[in-house]
């Protein structure tokens, strides 16, 4: 049995022949009777296995010496004599069935992972400690408002916060909602984790009546009660992780590609969230017997200003559904009590003065 022997002390390579007895392996040079080394069988180990290493080296425990038997037939013979050396000549694995099995497993796992991100967050996110969500929301709010003026009219803020909390309670929401009003534009409002709502004063001043502000507020409360902000963060993180794991985390090119894909999925999630918030907002107003036509009239007003409808033009790149679709979905009769009293509405209109 021929092999290459490295003594572990120098980089000398020696062609040797092997002789195995019941308890030791004798290593000697061909045509020489002198034994170069004696390895007790009990102390012999295989470094690696033949599924990964082309030729797994044999070593003596506690030593740097190596024996390499290139011939697979001789390796098999060695294993038949010393079964403990089995990794030296494992049964060759058929590549095609393994490739097929792993590919199927990957497809199934991606499906599972995707479902966990898509549906699991629905149940897992509400379990996140609320204090963490609030801390995250406050930190983001501080940064967003850093260079902006906020409106401090007490009566106006009290009015909008009163309605926000009434609507949240109507939905069975347990935490207190806080509304901040930023001076100026754009005509917009958004929700942060930790039940934090931000309104821009232009939205209030350009609203035709109080029902429009109430409608937008109810829509934002829809985001709050469905935990949309934190669900959005969790899903974005989950999708990002999926891309990283799938691409082996090895390529910056693919991370860029993944970020693009992730952004698209986030937009899709955003559209679903908006539809849900629209429906919930209208429902909450109706449940309290308040006018619920404000959202649709607000959208109609927006559409009159910008008939091209950016959300529709952007298609899959838009975080919001097309405005016409939202108008149809939220259209309600102009019946019900006003959401704000006349005094509250007046105070809210003057909140920045």
């Amino acid at each position, binding site marked *: 049995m021929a092999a290459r022997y490295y003594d572990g002390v*120098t980089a000398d390579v020696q062609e040797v022949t092997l002789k195995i007895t019941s308890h030791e392996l004798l290593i000697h040079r061909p045509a020489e009777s002198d034994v170069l080394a004696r390895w007790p069988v009990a102390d012999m180990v295989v470094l690696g296995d033949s599924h990964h290493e082309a030729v797994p080296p044999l070593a003596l425990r506690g030593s740097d010496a190596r024996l390499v038997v290139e011939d697979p037939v001789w390796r098999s013979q060695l294993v038949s004599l010393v079964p403990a050396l089995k990794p030296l000549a494992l049964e060759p694995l058929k590549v095609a069935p393994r490739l097929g099995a792993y*590919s199927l497993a990957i497809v199934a796992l991606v499906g599972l992972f995707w479902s966990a991100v898509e549906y699991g967050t629905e149940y897992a996110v509400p379990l996140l400690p609320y204090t963490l969500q609030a801390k995250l929301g406050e930190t983001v709010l501080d940064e967003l408002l850093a260079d902006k003026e906020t409106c401090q009219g007490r009566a106006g803020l009290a009015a909008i916060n009163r309605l926000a909390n009434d609507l949240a309670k109507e939905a069975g929401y347990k935490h207190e909602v806080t509304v901040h009003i930023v001076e100026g534009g754009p005509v917009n409002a958004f929700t942060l984790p930790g039940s934090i709502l931000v309104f821009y004063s232009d939205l209030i001043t350009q609203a035709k009546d109080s029902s429009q502000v109430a409608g937008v507020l109810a829509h934002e409360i829809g985001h709050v009660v469905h935990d949309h902000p934190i669900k959005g963060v969790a899903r974005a993180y989950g999708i990002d992780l999926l891309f990283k794991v799938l691409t082996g985390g090895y390529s910056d090119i693919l991370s860029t*590609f993944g970020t693009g894909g992730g952004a698209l999925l986030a937009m899709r999630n955003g559209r679903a969230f908006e539809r849900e918030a629209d429906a919930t907002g209208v429902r909450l107003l109706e449940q309290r017997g308040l006018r619920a036509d404000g959202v649709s009239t607000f959208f109609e007003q927006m559409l009159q200003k910008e008939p091209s409808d950016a959300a529709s033009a952007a298609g899959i790149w838009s975080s919001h559904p097309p405005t016409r679709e939202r108008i149809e979905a939220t259209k309600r009769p102009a019946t019900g009590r006003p959401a704000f009293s006349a005094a509250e509405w007046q105070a809210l209109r003057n909140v920045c003065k």
Partner: protein
Amino acid sequence: MQAAGPTLAGTSSPTSAPGTPWSADLTPSRPVYDGRLGEIYAIYLRHLALMLVTLGWSRFWGRTRIRRYVWNHLSVLGDRFEYRGRGIELMIGFVLALLVVAAWSGLMYLVWLYVLHEKPFASFGLFDLFSLSVVLIGFPLAYVGHYAGLRYKLSRTRWRGIRCGMAGSAWGYGATATFLHFANAMTAYLLTPVVSVNLARPRIVNTRVGTQGFAFAGRAGDIYGRYLGYYFLNILAWVAAAVATFMAVGGTLETLGVSSDDFLKLFAHPSLHTVVVLLLVAFGAYLLFGLLILPLRCWWQAYLLRYLVTHSRAGNVLFATAISTWQMWGFLVLNYLIVLLTLGIGWPWVMHRTMKLIAGQLWIYGAPQGSEIRQPADRGPGYGEGLLDLFDVSGI
């Protein structure tokens, strides 16, 4: 293996310390790579499946398995390499690097609390402070990670049972690399040969196979002429491509009946749709330019690699390569496209191609005196690659 290799710089008058016996035997050989693509894929796909199950935490073990396969299927002078790294060592390295970042985050939080008093400066808040500071420390740490990662890989590599290794300071290398890259950027990349040679030198001369060190006789001055040629040709190529594109776009617009005024209006009041289309066109043009102009870059990169290899030696063993511009294009551009177009699944194929390229293009002249190379006392770092994992995109 006996074969006629490429012309070897310096073989006619080898440089040795006085008194060093010179081995006249410069028999050429090449490394042999006998890995099979299907087998690598089987290991890689198993690794991907486990990554999905463990949310990426199995990557340390997956990477180790792939290295074991690749290393042991490569042999030099008939002796295969061994990879003896362990997944747990990579994981410890990663966790330690995470702790460094956590400590840094803590420090930034203290700055936020006691220096900025929790008040954002303009719109520069806690997140910006953290992100910017991580980017700032990330640049030098990525270079430190490169060196430390190489040291780890070498310390877990054996040839003829002898451990390889790497001397020198990773922090020193990180400082040098940061300074040189900064200086290069400040001088419109005219210092590239200085950067290439001075960063290759520590990596080459500090590499060890047992007690056998490597030597590097390269000088930036040798390659400046070629670099300046590449530098100015590159500028010319970009200008020519830009003019050609401008003319092509102008011509197309006219044939479509769009006047220059109409075109300008599009820019004055761009819709989101226009912006997206423009971004896509710009990306397409960038890719097209890149593919046209990259051969020029490959011409320079192939030259640089040939220079670095032929000016390196290990004792009496000399190295050479005749890698061509076309082969470098396959290595840099085609591999990039394979990974991109297969969404990463082509990575093992790229690795396989790279190993075959090394085996086909690296020529080794002579053989070391095995008895003179001894096992080193140093066992290398106890863990590895954490910084590389965090601050850099590391391959296998």
